Structure formats: structure tokens, C-alpha cells
């Protein structure tokens, strides 16, 4: 019986395992489906990782490398090429690997499966179904891991960071990126990526536009792009045709949670991840979740920080058992899309609570109000908030303990 089984050896799993080790657990296993640790970081060869965590700019593989190196001097067992097939609410884990199909047991579990990309289906793009339509991440894997090009004349739908990064990457590799098309009136990616991945190469960004038709019987031959109105409906007469062989989709990420659901863990429909407490515990005692499996982060640095809390909490659980506490609920107020955590243990030992959330629209000078009923508990001033940027509040726990529900609201200043 393991003290802790970590499902997924990407940045979240690595940080959780290391933190659990630092907090005293010795019998830990990481279950990783790929043939190496690092998860999606291995294909994110661009730089910009680690500014918060390591105070320097690293590429994805370098960031992963740092954590992999840390684990080398520990007793953490790593099982590669191992896929978790099923977990049960009593913490049995069925795993499959070329070495065998087996059931292992653990006193605690950390769910760190990461996320997956939304596909063409998720946004129902009309037209034919040729080859040449890829999620940006799939094209990235082909190019960065296998040295294979998805195409030569490219349009990118969605201005999320992966799409922007791929615009630059494909351009540097000799493809012509014709445009980046974004449904919303603002970009979903970091400003820095818009400048360095699009502006640097003269790639136009069409905001409030979408792809309305895909053409080609075999390989993609072209697409139609149209401007959309405020209800995101295409406006007649704004058709622009692009002659392209490749369409990359960067239209959002969804936490990967089939195992979570099947184990009967309560899910938040807003995040598509598990409901979690401040210590990243889920609705099942001793099962924790962290990273993009809980909610999609912008920066891996925050994934690591969150996962370290999950790992520490798993260690605490193994050593001292469940926390047996009353629950404080965090409620989404106006213009707040979701919060993580969604719940707090009233008797938590943590002195401060990290609350992450996303706003639903663009705010310039604004305030974030943490309240309960008519009581304002804390107010945070923000110069600028966009849905693409995860917000982070740190609230002293003692300010919250007396309330049953806490509401987080975004307001114009």
C-alpha cells in the first residue's frame, strides 16, 4: 500500500509528489502514461516558464527538468508507460502498463491529469471534414517532438497562448501563417505572446471573427472567416476567404476528469474540475486534485504552487487523518466566472487562503470585493482584469472563519 499515488507526471504531479516527500511521506508513486515525466511541458519548447517560481525564464522542458532533478534524490517511485484505468472511492487504482494490468492501493491520491484541448466538434464549425484541421497542441507535438510539419499555409482559430505560440513556431519553420482569428473582442492570450508571436511576423489578428466554413474533400483547401456581432453570430456580407491547407484550433482547454467523475467525486460545472477545498482536497477524503485537472491555469508557476499545497495536504492527511471540519462555501458574485477553491475547511491551519478566479469580461480600474451578506471582508484594487488572465487573492484565514458563505465579486472602481 502506497502512502500517496499521484496520477499524472506533468508539472502538477511532479510538484505534488515532491511536496508530499518534503512533508514527510516516503512511499509515493507517480503514475505517468507517457514514456517520460514532464507532461505537456515536453512539447512546450518556447521560453517564458518559471519567472515566478525560479525567477528566470525557462523553456517548458527546462522547467520540467528542474522538478525531475529534485525528485531524483527522493524515494518517490515513478511508473512510466502506465495508464490509470479506474480509481475507486476507496482508493483502489487499476493501472495498465506493458509490465502488467494490476490494482494498487494508496492511502491518499492526488489527481493531476492535466487538461485536453477543445476540438472542432466543441465549436461545431460547419463545412466538410478534410485532413489538415488540427488542435494547436497536436500540431505542436508533431513539430516539436517528431519534427513533422502539419502544413504550409496556416490559419489559427483562437488567440489562446498555444495558438499564438504555434503561429510563431510554424512561421519560423517556414510555414506561412495567414491570420489568427478570435471569436471574442479581446485576445485569450498574453499580450507578450501577441506581440512576439503575431506582431513580430506581421500576422494579422482578427478579433470578433470566426471560421464559418471549412472546405476541401481530402486535404483542407480553404476556409471562410466572418465577423461576428455582439451575440457572436456571423454578420452577413463580412466573408473573407483564406486559401490554406491547415487550420489550427486553439479554442480552449478542458480539465481531464473522466477518472474523477467515475470515482464519484463532486464536480464543478463551471471549471469542469472537481470541487476543491483550500488544501485541494476533493469531496472524497484523502483524494486531492491540482493543476489543470482542477482549473485551467495561465502559468505553470501557479500550477506548481497549487500542486505543492495538494502534496502537503496529502501528507498531512496520511499522517493525521481527515480534517473533520465545518465547511465554508465560496460563491461566485457578479462577473466572477468561477473560484478555486470553492470550499474552505473552517478549522484549516493555513494562515492565509489563496483564491484564484477568472472574471467574465474586461475590466479596467476595478475592485474585487470579498463579502458575506452585507459584510465586506476584504477589498482588492485591480488596475486591469481580463478573462484570459487568472486572478489571485490572498486572504488571511482569520477574516473568513466566522462566515458560512463568502462571495467574491468584481466591480468597476
Amino acid at each position, binding site marked *: 500500500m502506497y502512502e500517496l499515488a499521484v496520477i499524472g507526471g506533468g508539472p502538477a504531479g511532479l510538484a505534488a509528489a515532491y511536496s508530499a516527500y518534503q512533508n514527510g511521506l516516503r512511499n509515493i508513486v507517480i503514475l505517468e502514461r507517457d514514456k517520460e515525466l514532464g507532461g505537456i511541458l515536453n512539447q512546450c519548447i518556447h*521560453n517564458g516558464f518559471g519567472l515566478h517560481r525560479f525567477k528566470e525564464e525557462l523553456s517548458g522542458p527546462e522547467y520540467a527538468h528542474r522538478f525531475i532533478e529534485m525528485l531524483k534524490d527522493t524515494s518517490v517511485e515513478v511508473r512510466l508507460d502506465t495508464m490509470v484505468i479506474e480509481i475507486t472511492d476507496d482508493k483502489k487504482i487499476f493501472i495498465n502498463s506493458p509490465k502488467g494490468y494490476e490494482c494498487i492501493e494508496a492511502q491518499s491520491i492526488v489527481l493531476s491529469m492535466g487538461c485536453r484541448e477543445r476540438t472542432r466538434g466543441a465549436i461545431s464549425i460547419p463545412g466538410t471534414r478534410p485532413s489538415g484541421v488540427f488542435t494547436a497542441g497536436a500540431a505542436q507535438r508533431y*513539430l516539436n517532438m517528431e519534427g513533422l510539419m502539419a502544413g504550409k499555409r496556416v490559419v489559427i482559430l483562437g488567440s489562446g497562448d498555444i495558438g499564438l505560440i504555434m503561429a510563431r513556431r510554424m512561421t519560423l519553420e517556414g510555414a506561412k501563417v495567414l491570420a489568427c482569428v478570435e471569436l471574442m473582442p479581446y485576445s485569450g492570450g498574453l499580450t507578450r505572446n501577441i506581440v512576439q508571436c503575431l506582431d513580430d511576423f506581421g500576422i494579422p489578428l482578427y478579433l470578433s471573427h470566426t471560421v464559418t466554413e471549412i472546405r476541401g474533400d481530402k486535404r483542407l483547401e480553404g476556409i471562410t472567416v466572418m465577423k461576428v456581432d455582439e451575440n457572436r453570430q456571423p454578420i452577413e456580407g463580412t466573408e473573407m476567404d483564406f486559401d490554406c491547407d491547415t487550420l489550427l484550433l486553439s479554442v480552449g482547454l478542458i480539465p481531464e476528469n473522466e477518472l474523477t467523475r467515475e470515482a464519484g467525486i463532486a464536480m464543478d460545472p463551471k471549471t469542469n474540475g472537481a470541487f476543491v477545498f483550500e488544501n485541494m482536497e476533493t469531496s472524497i477524503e484523502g483524494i486531492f486534485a491540482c493543476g489543470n485537472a482542477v482549473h485551467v491555469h495561465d502559468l505553470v508557476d501557479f500550477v506548481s504552487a497549487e500542486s505543492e499545497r495538494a502534496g502537503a495536504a496529502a501528507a498531512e492527511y496520511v499522517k493525521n487523518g481527515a480534517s473533520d471540519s465545518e465547511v465554508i462555501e465560496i460563491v461566485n458574485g457578479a462577473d466572477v466566472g468561477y473560484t478555486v477553491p470553492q470550499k474552505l475547511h473552517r478549522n484549516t491551519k493555513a494562515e492565509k487562503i489563496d483564491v484564484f478566479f477568472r472574471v467574465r469580461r474586461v475590466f479596467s480600474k476595478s475592485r474585487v470585493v470579498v463579502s458575506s451578506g452585507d459584510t465586506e471582508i476584504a477589498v482588492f484594487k485591480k488596475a486591469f482584469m481580463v478573462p484570459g488572465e487568472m486572478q489571485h487573492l490572498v486572504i488571511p484565514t482569520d477574516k473568513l472563519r466566522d462566515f458560512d458563505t463568502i462571495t467574491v465579486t468584481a466591480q468597476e472602481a
Partner: protein
Amino acid sequence: MTELTCIGCPLGCRLTVDEENDYAVTGNSCKKGAEYGKNELKNPTRVLTTTVNAEGGIHGRCPVRTEAPIPKAMLFDAMKVLSEVTVKAPVKCGETVLEDILGTGVNVIATRDL
């Protein structure tokens, strides 16, 4: 006069830089913006990240980056140079795979073990 977007923070200020007036920056909200605007026009540089051919490892490509930023205008030439490079496993993360790329004085390093 050149317009550009500041990348110093999420605010993304629209900067205007006046090349003829000692690269004076307007439109910025903070000092970082002024500095960024000036550098971006006088000597824009970027860190280049890409992959090189790899033999004998678990992958056929090895990710690399320039150890420091290189002039933006050299990116495509640097890509051409790197397309000729092959590394042989074992490779250590941080190991130099090409010294002094295009006379910039900047080395290209591997960004993973292979």
C-alpha cells in the same frame, strides 16, 4: 513615430515611440513601458527556441534555445543554421549544442536531457 504594444504587464499599453526625439515614449503607464519602447526600436532582441535533429535518444528532435536574446532580425538565419545541426545522445539539459551562433557571441543550449 512607431506604435507598439508594451509587454511589461497585462495592461498592454499602446506606446508611441519617437525615433527622432531620442526614442521618447508616450502612452506608457509606467517606467517599464518607456524602457521597453526604447529598446524595442533601438535594438529589438528575442530568445530563439526551436529543435535540432537528434540521434540515439528517445526522441528524434532535441529542443534548444539561445542562451541569451539575439537580434530579432537574425531569427530566420539562426533557424537555417540550426536546421543543419544534429546532436547525439546522451545530451544534458543546458549543454551547448552550438557556440556563438552567427557571431552574436550567444551559445545555443539543449533544454532537456536526451
